[in-house]
């Protein structure tokens, strides 16, 4: 997807497995299989998919919060997965994470000032207390909070304010890459757009690269320059924003777009096409061949036998045996009411 020579982040064949017990039997759950993508400085990549598709596992593996079973994660040319504990901690100031539930991601007994200043305390221990507090205050103001919030505890804040605190904490060390794991989905409608605007504004001002994980396609369209569509831990489609939303190449992407709710009532709603039938299968027993075939309207016998490779079709990378035929079909019917 990138023509930029040296990407900031290059993920190659990332796999994440979890050891689980099913009815007393030990088994491996392959949460992420063979995911590769690149991200250039200042760009943002959206990762979309249903729950259980492995989105959060990718986020956590990038930051080494869960171990990767295989693959490489090059950040500025260095493989993060090979770093020692000490090197990793040094690297962490450049890699930050924002969580879905902002209140859960803040220590309930630590004041806002201490929480936001914590990365400075860890990464710049030489900084004087006065300098640290000045930068904390400046950062709080940058996210729309004020000095008077410094000594409060997280439970005194609403979800939107708590997410602002989490953003301040993530950005105070000026990281290069920000991973956002569903940063908007626990927020109310009116707050959601405030936080989305704030994130985008900070991204532009600081030249951040972003991995933006969401199940909300419209939010991804707003926030991201590129989109990766994930299903059962595998990449279905990887494309720049505009081609993906105007002419999705993969049947799953199309189905997701069709299932999205309309902005206004549409005529003959009862007959409106439901994007997909059935539900995402368990990652413990993924279907053979193409993992999506059990719900795919275009599935043929070959799909059960052979796993499709990710290949270039028109403007996207698509993992579908019938991508060329699909590309010839007319683009999606318009979604608006």
């Amino acid at each position, binding site marked *: 997807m990138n023509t930029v020579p040296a990407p900031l982040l290059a993920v190659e064949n990332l796999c994440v497995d979890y050891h689980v017990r099913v009815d007393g039997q030990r088994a491996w759950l392959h949460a992420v299989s063979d995911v590769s993508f690149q991200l250039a400085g200042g760009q943002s990549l959206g990762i979309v998919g249903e729950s259980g598709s492995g989105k959060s596992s990718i986020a956590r593996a990038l930051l080494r919060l869960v171990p990767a079973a295989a693959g490489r994660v090059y950040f500025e040319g260095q493989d993060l997965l090979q770093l020692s504990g000490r090197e990793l901690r040094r690297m962490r100031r450049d890699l930050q994470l924002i969580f879905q539930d902002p209140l859960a*991601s803040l220590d*309930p*007994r630590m004041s806002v000032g201490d929480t936001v200043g914590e990365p400075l305390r860890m990464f710049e221990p030489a900084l004087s207390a006065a300098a640290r507090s000045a930068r904390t205050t400046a950062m709080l103001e940058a996210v729309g909070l004020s000095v008077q919030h410094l000594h409060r505890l997280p439970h005194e804040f609403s979800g939107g304010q708590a997410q602002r605190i989490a953003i301040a904490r993530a950005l105070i060390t000026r990281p290069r890459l920000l991973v956002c794991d569903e940063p908007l989905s626990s927020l109310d409608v009116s707050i959601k757009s405030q936080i989305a605007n704030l994130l985008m504004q900070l991204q532009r001002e600081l030249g951040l690269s972003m991995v933006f994980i969401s199940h909300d396609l419209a939010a991804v369209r707003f926030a991201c320059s590129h989109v990766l569509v994930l299903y059962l831990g595998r990449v279905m489609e990887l494309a720049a924003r505009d081609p993906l939303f105007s002419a999705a190449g993969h049947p799953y992407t199309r189905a997701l777009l069709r299932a999205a709710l309309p902005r206004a009532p549409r005529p003959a709603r009862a007959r409106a096409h439901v994007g997909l039938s059935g539900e995402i299968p368990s990652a413990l027993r993924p279907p053979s061949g193409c993992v999506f075939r059990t719900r795919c309207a275009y599935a043929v016998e070959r799909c059960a036998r052979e796993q499709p490779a990710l290949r270039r079709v028109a403007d996207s990378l698509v993992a579908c045996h019938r991508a060329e035929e699909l590309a010839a079909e007319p683009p999606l019917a318009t979604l608006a009411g």
Partner: protein
Amino acid sequence: MKRQTLSRLMRQPMARVAAVLLATIVLAALLVPWLSPYDSYTPNFALLSHAPTLAGGHVLGTDPLGRDLLVRVMWGCRISLAVGVVATLMSVVIGVTWGAIAGYAGGTIDQVMMRVVDVLYSVPFVPFVIVLTVLFGRDLWLMFLAIGAVCWLDIARIVRGQTLSLKQREFIEAARVCGVHGAAMIRRHIVPNLFGIVIVYATLTIPTVILFEALLSFLGMGVQSPMASLGSLVADGASDMQSHPHLLIVPALFLSSIIYAFNYLGDGLRRALDPRNRA
């Protein structure tokens, strides 16, 4: 502790009674040298084993050596409370450190540390103290040590369990992303979040310790005369129970009041800190 927690605590009638009672006893025990005309050691052979009376100035009577029983009991409370608080503090410090490290480190370290706790658990307490007294003689500090050595085990187990569940929380993950690790994580994020459970448990440990001390003193292994603890006073009173029941009843009453008060206070605290009761 938050002001809200305190007000939720004080809204419970039993906890309020317990708090007032404890405060009174503690204050009296602390101020007894200045409040009372009598001292705790000087015998008065004119007034041996006097019964309680309002007339003679010895409100709760005197002991077999003619010393004012109220003053003796207050000095006894002093020692008992001191043992309770000091030994509990000791076990909290050891227990929280041990449990938090085991829980946070996990894996082999956790296994080894918790097996140590299991082994210590299986040591019978009273014979253990008897051996200690035989080896080192009777000493107040030895008693602190002996009791503290036993009580931290419970705290360590509870703290480890809590740490294991705290470790799963997202804010710990968030702190890791911010470069916090090892000792700093335990100090900055784990221990402060254990505060509620530890303070409740410590409040409930104090009466256990006081009872332990009373048991040891009753068995003659605790404080030495002329010093007195509530346990030794009860022991002395028990020997004169037939002729002078007040010598048993008065210290026993104080002992059980203190223990009840701490138990109610601990229960009240648990309720006050329980998020389900926050309305």
